[in-house]
Each structure stands twice: as structure tokens, then as C-alpha cells.
């Protein structure tokens, strides 16, 4: 089921949370709403769910062409997974998962046996077999997360919405669960929209990444496309590390070639102010000898650094890639210095 969001406005008092936001989420896709906190991404997700309503008379939300703007959350058929899971603490895992089925009017409600089977099937799907009798406080963060997912899926939603699905988890669990979710999505093929402030997460997981900032969408596209061709300086900064050169060009640390200062083709010479080697990689901070002397981040291999016998204080030469269009992105909407917004 595709989701279509058409020029949504949302204000809370004087605060504008969403300013004319439109978005198409293709059927079966996994779409990430990526942005810093306060960018409006969670509000957008809640509007799609029906937990929040757009300003009167502003936009529309369509599910597969059908207007659901005025349909209450309970009747939209969305599965919503909350950032802190919002499991019912006083219920067992099985009762949590069965909740959506047990509140159906008696005519539509499946028989007890059927509900039980469905719960079992869902527990198997999220790899929590045998934990049906546990209570939420007896589970780990990752397990709670999957119970919340199973509970949301129990009502056979048309769309799955996840608010910061990995936000409250440890780094390792996060990575595992991320991969698992991607596989899971590929298996069940449910149109999924998730909110994150972690660019790595968005780029790794999603088919489509929507970068948001200050109540607006900055750019929408496939992860690779957005990373390679950021349209605004904000997107450039937000998706991974980037150097802003004196001529206004943006260059990613791995795109810079590290040479000896006297070598041919050097664009800029500078002094190594910091050298950090981790495994096969090396990260260098280089202070240019001329111009603004703004530190430039360079990523090289350990082999190269060792071959050049570099250490702190050495003078090196930097060679930048040939300019292409995307390296001079247009300024972001407010014409602010994007450096203030980097994370």
C-alpha cells in the first residue's frame, strides 16, 4: 500500500512543526525520515498514523489513493512502533500481541484459539518463540522492540510506522536489529516508514531516504543518490563528514588524495595536526598553510601513512577531486552557515 502525503502543514501554537510537506512512499518500500531533532520527522510520522492531525484545511494523507486524512488512528490500519515501545506493562507478551485482536467488536473478533495461533505465529516471526508468558520488564531492550513490532503486526496493518526504532538500544544490538529489520522487511514486503536521526542507519536500511530540516523536506531519494549528490549544504553536512573548502566546494574526507608537499598535482599544502590510526584506516587533520587555515579532514589507509612515514607536524600535500556540479550545493533555505548544523 503506497502512502501519499500532500502539502501538510502543522503548527503547535506559534511553532511550525511541518511547513508544506509532500512525500510519496512507494508500495512495499522502506523509507527513512532522517533529520535532526526538531526537524518535524516524528510529527510527520504521527500525522500518517492519525495520532496527530494536520492543520485544518491544509494537506491530505492518502493510503493507496484513498483519503484517510479524517479517519481516526484506530481505523486506519497502521502498525505503530513507539520509540520506547509503549508495551502494556501489566500484560504478558502474548496478551500484548493479542491486544489489537482482543479489542475488536465481538462479531469481527477471531476465536480464542485463532488469536492464540496468531500470537504464536507472530512470536515465531520476530524470533521470540516461547516467551509468550513473560512480562515486558523481564525482556531485554531488543526483545521488547520485537514484541512491539509483533503487536503492531497482529492487526495486519497496511502500513508500518516506526518512531526511532533503534534509539533506545545499545550499539551492538542496534546493528544486529537493523540488519534483521531489513531482512524482515524484505520477507514481508510491508510499506514501512521509519524515523531516525542517525544517517548511517537511514543509508544502510532504507530504499528511500527523506532528509528533513526545520519543518521542511530538504531532499528525497535513494541512499546512494543522496550521499553522492546532496542538493543542499545541509544534506551534505548531515550525511557523513565533509570538508568545506575556501572556494565553497564540499569534499568528503575519502575523496582527498594524500601526497608529499612537493609532488606534482598538489592543490594545497598543510601541516598534519592530528594523526589517528585505527586498524587498516588512518584519519588525519591537516591545517592548510594558506587561506582560512580551516582544518581539513582526510581519510587514508594505514599502509599509505606508513609508507610516507608521516607523523604529527609533517607537511603534506592535498589533491582534491575534479570539481563536479554537486560539490557546490545551493545554500539551504535559510541561508545560514551549515556548519552550525553539523552533528
Amino acid at each position, binding site marked *: 500500500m503506497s502512502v501519499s502525503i500532500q502539502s501538510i502543514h502543522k503548527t503547535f501554537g506559534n511553532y511550525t512543526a511541518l511547513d508544506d510537506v509532500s512525500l510519496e512512499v512507494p508500495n512495499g518500500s522502506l523509507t527513512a525520515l532522517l533529520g535532526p531533532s526538531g526537524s518535524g520527522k516524528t510529527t510527520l510520522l504521527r500525522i500518517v*498514523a*492519525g*495520532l496527530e492531525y494536520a492543520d485544518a484545511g491544509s494537506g491530505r494523507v492518502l493510503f493507496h489513493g484513498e483519503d484517510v486524512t479524517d479517519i*481516526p*488512528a*484506530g*481505523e486506519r490500519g*497502521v*502498525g*505503530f512502533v*513507539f520509540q*520506547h515501545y*509503549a*508495551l*502494556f*506493562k*501489566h*500484560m504478558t507478551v502474548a496478551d500484548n500481541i493479542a*491486544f*489489537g485482536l482482543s*479489542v*475488536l467488536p465481538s462479531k469481527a473478533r477471531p476465536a480464542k484459539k485463532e488469536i492464540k495461533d496468531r500470537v504464536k505465529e507472530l512470536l515465531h516471526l520476530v524470533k521470540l518463540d516461547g516467551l509468550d508468558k513473560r*512480562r515486558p*520488564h*523481564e525482556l531485554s531492550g531488543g526483545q521488547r522492540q520485537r514484541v*512491539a513490532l509483533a*503487536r*503492531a503486526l*497482529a*492487526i495486519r496493518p497496511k502500513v508500518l510506522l516506526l518512531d526511532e526504532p533503534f534509539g533506545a538500544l545499545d550499539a551492538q544490538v542496534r546493528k544486529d536489529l537493523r540488519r534483521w529489520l531489513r531482512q524482515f522487511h524484505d520477507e514481508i514486503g510491508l510499506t514501512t516508514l521509519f524515523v531516525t536521526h542517525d544517517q548511517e542507519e537511514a543509508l544502510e536500511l532504507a530504499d528511500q531516504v527523506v532528509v528533513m530540516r526545520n519543518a521542511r523536506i530538504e531532499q528525497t531519494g535513494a541512499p546512494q543518490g543522496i550521499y553522492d549528490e546532496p542538493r543542499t549544504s545541509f544534506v551534505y553536512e548531515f550525511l557523513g563528514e565533509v570538508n568545506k573548502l575556501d572556494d565553497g566546494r564540499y569534499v568528503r574526507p575519502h575523496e582527498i588524495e594524500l601526497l608529499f608537499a612537493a609532488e606534482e598535482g598538489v592543490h594545497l599544502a598543510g601541516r598534519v595536526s592530528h594523526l589517528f590510526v585505527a586498524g587498516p584506516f588512518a584519519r588525519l587533520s591537516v591545517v592548510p598553510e594558506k587561506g582560512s587555515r580551516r582544518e581539513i579532514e582526510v581519510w587514508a589507509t594505514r599502509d599509505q601513512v606508513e609508507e610516507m612515514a608521516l607523523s604529527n607536524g609533517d607537511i603534506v600535500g592535498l589533491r582534491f577531486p575534479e570539481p563536479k556540479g554537486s560539490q557546490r550545493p545551493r545554500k539551504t533555505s535559510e541561508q545560514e552557515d551549515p556548519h552550525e548544523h553539523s552533528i
Partner: protein
Amino acid sequence: MAYQSSTTESATVRWILIGSACVVLTLFLFLPLAAVFIEAFGKGWAVFEAALTEPAAASAIELTLLTAAIAVPLNTIFGMAAAWLVTKFRFKGRAFLLSLIDLPFAVSPVIAGLVFVLLFGARGWFGPLLQNLDIQIIFAVPGIAIATVFVTFPFVARELIPLMESQGSDQEEAAVTLGAKGWQIFLRVTIPNIKWGLLYGVLLCNARAMGEFGAVSVVSGHIRNKTNTLPLHVEVLYNEYQFNAAFACAALLALLALVTLGLKTAVEHFTGHSAKGRH
């Protein structure tokens, strides 16, 4: 020198503090309570029993139970409604409503009683109207019930507001997205989450409803066998120098307080455990 943590005082200071706390506790809490029971049973069980079963006492006990039976359910409902409103919604006048809930705690119970006399008394604002309709509120059971409801209003609400505030609306919202209707959410999600806090509030509300003196004293008129609650009856007996009877009734009230405290501790014990388990 023995190891001493930076937050531990010297032995002398500790003993002075602990000792004075014990003296204060004995003087002001333990001794009075013991005195009540000793005086009550001073002339034996028969006198004690007689003091509680004589008609005036029986009527006072009955009226006290009736008052509590009216005030506690009402304030349970009001309290839940107020807590729900204040914690789940943001609206203009919310802060005002919050202070209004505290009002009965802030004003002296005597003033609370006087307010109702001014409103519903024979010379009060609604006095003539009530007289025409032949309804008596002041110096009658309705007045006592109203005064008690007023005085005990904050207990349930005050207990629930911080609890519901800390729980947020996540679980209710989850229930909404799963298709639950309003009453299903209330019965299956909200109530189970607040039940211990609710019970705690109800217990305190009940203890106060049965023990309230000031406000009830003003509106009751002290009509023996008719408008005397148990605390008022104690005062009447005491003023008539029937000390053993007065203390017998006082012992009953004290017992109620002890039972309430016991139950309250039990509730805390329970919630303490489930709270620990939650995190």
C-alpha cells in the same frame, strides 16, 4: 583512626540525633496512641462495648460510614476525571485547575464548613430557595456529606496526577493505533497502570472522610442521634466528662487510622516490588 565516610557524623552526634528522634516519637506519637487505648479499656471490655453500642454511638458510627460511603466513591470518580484531564490534555486554565484541586488542602476545614453554611444555611444565598423546596442541607446529613466531599477532594487526584504524568500517554496511544475504543483503553490500559496509586489515594481519602472534624462540626449542628459523626460524638462525650466512652470511640477512630496505615504500607510494599521489576 577508623575509616569514616564523609557523610557520617561522629558517634556522639549520631546518638544525640537518634536519641532525640526517639524521645519526640515516644512523646508525640506513641504515648498519645497508647493513652487512647489504655483509657478506652481502663474500665474493662464491658464498658468499652457499651460505649460503642449505646444508641448515640451506634448512630454516629452509622452516619460516619454513610458519609464515607458517599464521599469516597464520588471523590474516586472526581479524582480520576481530574487527573485524566490534567495529565492527558494541555489546555488554557490547566494551572488554575491544578491549584483549585489543592484548595481544600489549603483552606482551614472550619472555613470550608462556614462556606457551605453561607451558601445553604437558612440565611444563606440559597437558603430561601431550599426552604421553599423543603430541602434541608445544613444541620442535616447532606451538609455533612458535602463538607466531607469538599475536604477530601484532593486525595485521589493528588495521588494520581504525578503517577499519570510520569507514565505519559504512550500506552494509551499504542492502544489507539491498535483500534481500541475509549472505554477499552480506560479499563484495559489506564486503570491497570494506576490501580495501586488509586487504591492508595482511596485509602487516604477514606481515612480523612471518617476522621474529618472541623468542616463537619460547622455544618452538622451536633444533633445527637442525628447529625453527629464519630469524631463529633467523641467531642460531645468528652465535654460531658464521659471519658471512658469518649476514649472508646476515639480508640475506634485510632484503630481505623492504624488499619489504614497498615494497608497503605502493604500497598507501598506491592508497588515497590512491581516498580523495581519494571526497570
